[in-house]
């Protein structure tokens, strides 16, 4: 009997914060709003810390039920929270990073008029995110799932007076809705087959039936994947994430890098029991993942908006996580999720700091030479860049390597996944170092003048900026951020550097603690087809042990070296192109013009979607249905009926010639008819009833 952890407090506290700030925040002083928001995000973090300490003593999974929410006939779904290793990891990331970013925001958003609104939304996001990871059934998970979508919608559209921001928010919500459609259908299928949405019940039913392979499970899994691609910005639904950069930078850091977008990965890992039964679904996940990773990376190469580069890199990194899950290396995927949360959050926050320093400038082409002007930002940023580029021994290197290794040893097609993943790693390091060089090295390419053409940055939204502790940005151009912002940077930097050692592979003499810790939550590391068939035969799918690392240490080492090499190659190219020979890129661009413009325009995917989906739908809606059916057929039909009746009316009125003799004639005629009818009894021949 495990103690009551009051898990419900975790989400409720931020929600309280949301209510307070949301309902009365507008009237309150910033200081109060700040306290409320920070406290509301700190308490969960502390509670999680408390949980960590008790964690060993718990019987897992630890479930706390707060009663039913929806019930119909035999079906019940309640407010049930669950805690296991996976949840705990997510909790740590969400609350930890979440709190850091809250702190950072205090500095970053201080001049916004919608300050209270911002923090209310941030707390709301925490509420939903925590619900998502704590949920014990699909339905409650869906609550968080849609909820974070809502929060992200609100925060992307934070500068709602900017058309682009409003559009981006709408786009994000709708694209996510498409994913949620998949999630819903998956839930309907689950109810239809299992009569329940509770994880425990569904999974136990599956494990009890080893003969269930593929079939409807594949269907469920694929619909879940659709949901995941929506939330985690994978092909084909990734399009919303780059636009989401319209939101304030801390939002991009928290929601669109560290936490929300990883929900898809978490969901796949959480429901791995289903995926394990469907090799097809797994392959799909892996393919989507690796494809997205490569595709997004290529786009990232040519982006010039610093936040968009990071956005595409996020998409690409999420691809890695999908790849990990796709090869059933869920722990690897989650591990990358964690490390990515560190360095990507850091990258965004640092970028934010840069933007802040340049008072709103986001275009890297006009940056440069900031190394000396904002040292703290520079160094933290450097740590993040090295981490994501996979420079050992930083966090990124470890987690990415784990995934590549698992992909490599995965059955059929694993090698291809690995190859593409490797290539992507190279691209990653290239564009990250490109960013690094363009931002911090060389000379400042555009002086103050450039500050006019900064497209849609926060400063624009600051219609009536009140002077506060922050110096007026335009007063002195480039300035380091206050410590309230730098603090989180430093902490995250440290995490990005050492984070990797949680899962330092045995191959390099580590203990891979992280993987082993997650084991119980996401068993069945590998389950190749042969083994599956064996499993079916033996009826013990989960008895199969993960292949012993010993045999593969050599291989793993080789792969690690390769990827390190690739990482440095990417760095080298970046160095040549953007530091040694800054003129080269332009020439290359002109030489490979076609390819250049293709990539530069993100493969015109948005345009293609617009032409193939949006436009036709609107056409059908407006003309085919709106005009043809509704106006012509339905309204027209009504009118026609009316006019027909009136026509008959006119006919009847024609009798009324007004002439007495006509009337008499009429009467005489019908008199005769009447007499005849009555005399011959014509009507006796048919029934009146």
């Amino acid at each position, binding site marked *: 009997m495990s103690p009551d952890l009051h898990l419900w407090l975790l989400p409720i506290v931020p929600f309280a914060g949301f209510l307070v700030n949301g309902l009365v925040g*507008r009237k309150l002083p910033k200081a109060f709003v700040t306290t409320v928001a920070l406290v509301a995000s700190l308490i969960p973090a502390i509670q999680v810390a408390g949980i960590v300490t008790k964690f060993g003593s718990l019987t897992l999974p630890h479930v706390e039920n707060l009663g*039913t*929410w*929806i*019930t*119909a*006939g035999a*079906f019940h779904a309640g407010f049930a929270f669950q805690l296991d290793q996976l949840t705990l990891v997510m909790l740590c990331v969400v609350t930890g990073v979440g709190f850091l970013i809250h702190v950072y925001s205090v500095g970053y958003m201080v001049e916004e008029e919608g300050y209270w609104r911002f923090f209310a939304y941030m707390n709301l996001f925490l509420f939903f995110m925590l619900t998502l990871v704590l949920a014990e059934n699909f*339905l409650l998970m*869906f*609550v968080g799932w*849609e*909820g974070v979508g*809502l929060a992200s*919608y609100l925060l992307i*559209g934070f500068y*709602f*007076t900017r*058309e682009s921001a*409003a*559009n981006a928010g*709408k786009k994000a*919500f*709708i694209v996510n*809705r*498409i994913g*949620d*459609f998949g999630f*819903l*259908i998956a*839930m*309907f*299928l689950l*109810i*239809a087959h299992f009569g329940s949405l509770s994880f425990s019940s569904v999974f136990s039913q599956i494990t009890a039936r080893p003969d269930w392979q593929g079939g409807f499970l594949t269907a469920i899994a694929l619909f879940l994947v659709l949901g995941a691609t929506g939330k985690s910005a994978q092909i084909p639904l990734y399009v919303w994430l780059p636009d989401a950069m319209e939101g304030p930078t801390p939002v991009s850091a928290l929601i669109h890098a560290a936490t929300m977008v990883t929900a898809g990965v978490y969901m796949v890992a959480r429901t791995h029991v289903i995926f394990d039964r469907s090799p097809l679904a797994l392959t799909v996940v892996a393919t989507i993942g690796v494809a997205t990773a490569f595709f997004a990376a290529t786009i990232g190469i040519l982006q010039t908006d610093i936040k968009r580069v990071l956005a595409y890199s996020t998409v690409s990194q999420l691809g890695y996580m999908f790849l990990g899950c796709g090869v059933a290396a869920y722990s690897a995927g989650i591990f990358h999720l964690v490390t990515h949360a560190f360095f990507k959050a850091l990258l965004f926050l640092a970028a934010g700091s840069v933007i802040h320093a340049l008072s709103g400038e986001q275009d890297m082409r006009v940056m440069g030479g900031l190394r000396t002007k904002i040292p703290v930002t520079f160094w933290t940023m450097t740590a993040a860049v090295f981490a994501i580029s996979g420079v050992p021994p930083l966090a990124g290197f470890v987690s990415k390597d784990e995934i590549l290794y698992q992909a490599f040893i995965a059955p059929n097609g694993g090698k291809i996944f690995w190859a593409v993943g490797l290539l992507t790693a190279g691209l990653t390091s290239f564009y990250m170092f490109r960013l690094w060089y363009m931002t911090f090295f060389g000379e400042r390419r555009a002086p103050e003048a450039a500050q006019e053409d900064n497209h849609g940055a926060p400063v624009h939204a600051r219609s009536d900026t009140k002077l506060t502790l922050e110096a007026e940005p335009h007063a002195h151009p480039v300035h380091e951020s206050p410590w309230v912002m730098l603090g989180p940077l430093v902490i995250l930097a440290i995490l990005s550097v050492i984070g990797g050692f949680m899962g330092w592979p045995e191959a390099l003499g580590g203990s891979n603690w992280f993987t082993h810790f997650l084991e119980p939550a996401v068993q069945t590391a590998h389950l190749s087809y042969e083994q599956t068939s064996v499993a079916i035969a033996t009826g013990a799918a989960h008895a199969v042990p993960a292949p012993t690392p010993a045999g593969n240490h050599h291989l793993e080492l080789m792969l690690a070296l390769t990827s390190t090499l690739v990482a440095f190659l990417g760095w080298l190219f970046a160095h040549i192109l953007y530091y040694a020979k800054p003129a080269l890129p332009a020439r290359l661009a002109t030489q490979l013009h076609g390819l250049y413009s293709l990539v530069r325009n993100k493969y015109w995917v948005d345009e293609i979607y617009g032409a193939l989906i949006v436009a036709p*739908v*609107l056409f*059908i*809606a*407006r003309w085919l*249905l*709106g005009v043809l*059916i*509704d106006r012509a057929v*339905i*309204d027209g*039909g*009504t009118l026609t009926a009316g006019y027909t009746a009136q026509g008959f009316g006119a006919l009847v009125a024609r009798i009324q010639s007004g002439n007495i003799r006509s009337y008499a004639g009429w009467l005489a005629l019908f008199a005769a008819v009447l007499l005849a009818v009555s005399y011959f009894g014509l009507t006796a021949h048919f029934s009146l009833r």
Partner: protein
Amino acid sequence: MLTDHILTLITFVPTAGAIVVVLLPRKGRIVQAFTLLVTLVTFALSLHLPTHFDYANHGFQFEENVPWINSPAIRYHLGVDGLSLWLVLLTTFLGPVGALISWRAIQNRTKEFYFFFLIQQTAMIGVFVALDLFLYYGFWELSLVPMAILIALFGPNRGRQAAIKFFLYTFIPSALFLVAILYLYAKAGTFDFVQIQNRLASGSLGLTPQALSWLSLAFLVAFAVKVPVFPLHGWLVDVIQEAPTAMAMVVAGKLGLYSIFRFNLGLFPAQARAIAPLMIVLAVVGILYGALVALAQTDMKRLVAYSILGNLSFCTLGIFCFAVAGLNGAVYQTLNEGLTGSALLVLISMLFERFGTYDMSLYGGLASRVPWLATLFVVTTLALVGLPLFNGFVGEFLVLSGSFAGHPYWVGAATLGTILSATYMLSMVQRIFYRKESSLVLSRPAPDLGFREHLTLWPMAILMLAMGVLSPYWIRAIEPAMTPLSGATPAVAAPVTPTTAAARLSGGAQ
């Protein structure tokens, strides 16, 4: 004892109020205030129902059953079960809302307005509580009149046509409906719903199969028009556009859907199943059609009208899939639509009061001008697009999940509606509240919600949330009423009691 006559009170207090309204002087806001008082009293009275409702038994409760006219055998028979219970409450709840929202919107002819408004209340409540087919039909038809007159009286530009269109659209099918009722009476010799149900169930009326299917069809068509179900919605848009908000709120949905539950499922279960495939298709088409057409609108009221069409089709879908969950969901969705749809119309009318147009393209950037209005608008939007923890989600989820097993592909298609609804609602929010402030918005002084408006909206908003989180509270009454309907034959197939036999004789004694 209150419990014995509570239904009569709830039903006729508004009428009494209406009569008083006629006598009130035409000055100040006396009429408004009095109407508000009456509706509040009615609501308070109706709260007696859920508090004294016996959730254990699934029969009719608070029954009143006295002879009204002995020949033809018409009885004054009222009663509520889990189905009608909440619909009555919804109606009485919307009463004060309607009174409040009309407070400033209706400036002239106030006496006429509130008189007919209160009569409308009586008619709608009566439809839900009447258990005698004659009485029911009476209220059913009565509910048309105040609506039509108020549309004619207050329709901004094409009021007369809209009123007549609405009236004929619903009245002509009701004629056949009346034939069916009379036919039943000719056979059964009684108008009492319960007796007829028993006799039909026990097959003691000796009706031929095709007679039964014609009867059920006559019932269904009349109801389907009133809902409205997809191809029969020709009146909806005009009416929503022309009717005063307080009327537009209540014109669609609950009356028709309730009747389908009560009669098509209650009296003709087999026939309802026979026609179910068609209805399911129509429902799905309606969902997608409504959503898509709404997508193309620039006029708020038209948009809302089509969205209502779409959302009501969810109920139809749930009904005709005959799964307990689906049926529960359908009822729940009916309540949602009544609540959320009304809230949306109220909000729109508030915008209209401020800026004098329903054309979205003229709006923009209102969020910073009227934050509260914007907030509540967004809340309503979210409830409407079925965001979890709001009422809309519970309804849609129950309907879809319940119906899915039976008709996976159709329900799958219907689920697409959730995407579309989000699309058009968010577009509306964006056009009105986001972007730069439009010239119109800048040209007018736009005060944020006043006290009266807060008073109107908050109860609805809170109720949306409550219904989204605490659904079992409502379901526990609904489900017992739905379970018998989900079976192919009504559970109340009791043998013909002496009384019904006697009634049959007296009815046959011509």
